């Protein structure tokens, strides 16, 4: 694992991804202290609305006179919390499904994998929108919907890894000395599947941030006055082309954070699986 980490850091592009992600985590953790006007998460100042970028407001102000830089910083926390919750919830569903379906060839595994296929056959956003509508629109609904649409990816990944590992010699040996299947799965198969899960989770973080932003933009995710990036871009539309800074900076924040996770995910994939590594002679 440490060799994989060393390989990861040697590639400047993956290292950049890691730096971006770590930077975002630091910003999210210390958001209230880093934001110049932390109270702008909720307070509005109508007298200073739609000011262009200046020394006072580096990213300008929005339609309610709130400092956009502060809201971008505060929004980092929201974006990461949503992404982590969704990915963890999707893992909580997908990993057991993948393990159970991958371990044996019986009707349970058939049903589970067909179910996975069905969920994969619907475009995630449409499914998330549909779920969002059937429950009450809001950020919690969006998170549930995103988790319900992302778990099949974990199920597929873990399924493939379990299938690969269950034929391995050490698994046969463990079964031979009488180890229980749950024990083998949790203590031996799962750790071996972790690199693949980690890669999938990292890419899932980027994907979730992007999809959550779309939901926010469409008005079925975060609700005002939350400093959500997607929501900010939606609110900015009525003030174009005058307030160009209003949608630009929240959008750039999305781009940067998703880019960070994607670069890191790519790097992890290469590091975890040397066979797929880009040869760079």
């Amino acid at each position, binding site marked *: 694992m440490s060799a994989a980490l060393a390989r990861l850091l040697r590639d400047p592009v993956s290292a950049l991804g890691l730096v971006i992600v770590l930077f975002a985590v630091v910003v999210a953790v210390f958001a209230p202290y880093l934001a110049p006007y932390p109270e702008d998460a909720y307070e509005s100042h109508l007298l200073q609305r739609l000011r262009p970028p200046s020394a006072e407001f580096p990213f300008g102000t929005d339609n309610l006179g709130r400092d956009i830089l502060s809201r971008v910083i505060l929004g980092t926390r929201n974006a990461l919390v949503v992404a982590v919750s969704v990915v963890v919830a999707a893992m909580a569903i997908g990993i057991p499904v993948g393990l159970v379906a991958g371990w044996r060839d019986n009707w349970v595994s058939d049903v589970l994998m067909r179910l996975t296929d069905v969920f994969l056959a619907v475009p995630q956003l449409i499914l998330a929108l549909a779920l969002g509508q059937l429950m009450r629109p809001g950020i919690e609904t969006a998170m549930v919907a995103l988790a319900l649409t992302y778990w099949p990816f974990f199920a597929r990944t873990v399924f493939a890894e379990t299938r690969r590992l269950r034929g391995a010699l050490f698994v046969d040996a463990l079964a031979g000395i009488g180890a229980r299947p749950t024990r083998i799965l949790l203590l031996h198969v799962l750790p071996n599947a972790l690199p693949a899960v980690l890669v999938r989770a990292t890419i899932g973080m980027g994907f979730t941030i992007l999809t959550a932003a779309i939901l926010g933009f469409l008005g079925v995710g975060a609700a005002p006055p939350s400093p959500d990036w997607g929501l900010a871009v939606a609110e900015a539309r009525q003030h174009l082309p005058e307030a160009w800074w209003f949608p630009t900076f929240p959008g750039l924040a999305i781009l940067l954070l998703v880019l960070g996770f994607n670069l890191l995910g790519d790097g992890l994939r290469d590091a975890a699986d040397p066979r797929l590594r880009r040869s*760079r002679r």
Partner: protein
Amino acid sequence: MARFVLRRILLALPALLGLVVLTFVLSRVIPGDPAATLAGDAATPAQIAEIRAQYGLDRPIWEQAIVHLRQVLTGDFGRSVFSGRPVVEEIAFRLPATLELTFAALLISTVLGVGLGLVAALDHNGPVDHLVRLLSVGGLAIASFWLAIMLQLVFSMELDWLPLRGRIDPTLGAPPDITGFLLLDTLLAGRLDLFWSALRHLVMPAVTLALPGLATIARFTRSGVLEALQKDYVLYARAAGYGRFRLAAIYVLRNAITVTVTQIGLLFGALISGAVAVEAVFDWPGLGTYAVQAILSSDYKALLAVTLVVGVVYAVVNVMVDVAQALIDPRVAEEMS
């Protein structure tokens, strides 16, 4: 080949049936009362009961399921709560708009993506390669709705080169309605002015929608070509004296493209998802805006129909992808049968 196609279609049916069941289960099992949702916040219990009866929600669950299945199979999705028009009619009007947009995007991303991927692979670790790599990671990280707004800001609002929204300039009169595909219909009607207008309206939405796909295709083509270039048969072909261009553009690309074609199938789902946001920004009268409208107005019949139609389109695309695979690589068809 005909047997292969038939087999593929039969294999797709269970997933579609599963989708019908899924939409039904979701609409019943998810916490919350669809009747209450439909009736709105201020509804009295009597109103809710009335809506429940009107939609058959008071019947036993298995009866509802059969009704649902029968409705789906006969294409009867009921009337939209929002507009009062039959859902099927509205979808028939909006599906071609979305398909026109997604096909245009797919065309752009495939042609440019394959080209860029090939060029990048041939310039392995060179400047072009790095540029394409950056583009392919960046293209997947950009939020489509944001890119759409930025393009509008620059090319419509500031430069005034391209129209801001819509499918066609309404002041030119109503477009002909033959297939629903405007580019095709305007040409069939011989209206070049309308064709030009439709084309100009299509540019920004299609480019926005194409970018993530372009990134994915470029990336997979690049790695596919690089992998194929390592193969013994490439070395052999070089030794036997194949020309350099032919080797790269035809001989290797055909092997590399099998991976790319699989990706195109997977991409189509992402394209439809992306279309929701892109259509919303450009006021494109397609299924995406319809879905958003349905959500915001709690139009659950419309939404179920959209989900199903998209699922069917998705399944059809995947069958087409498999057929394309079989045409490219003769071994695929033989493995299947």
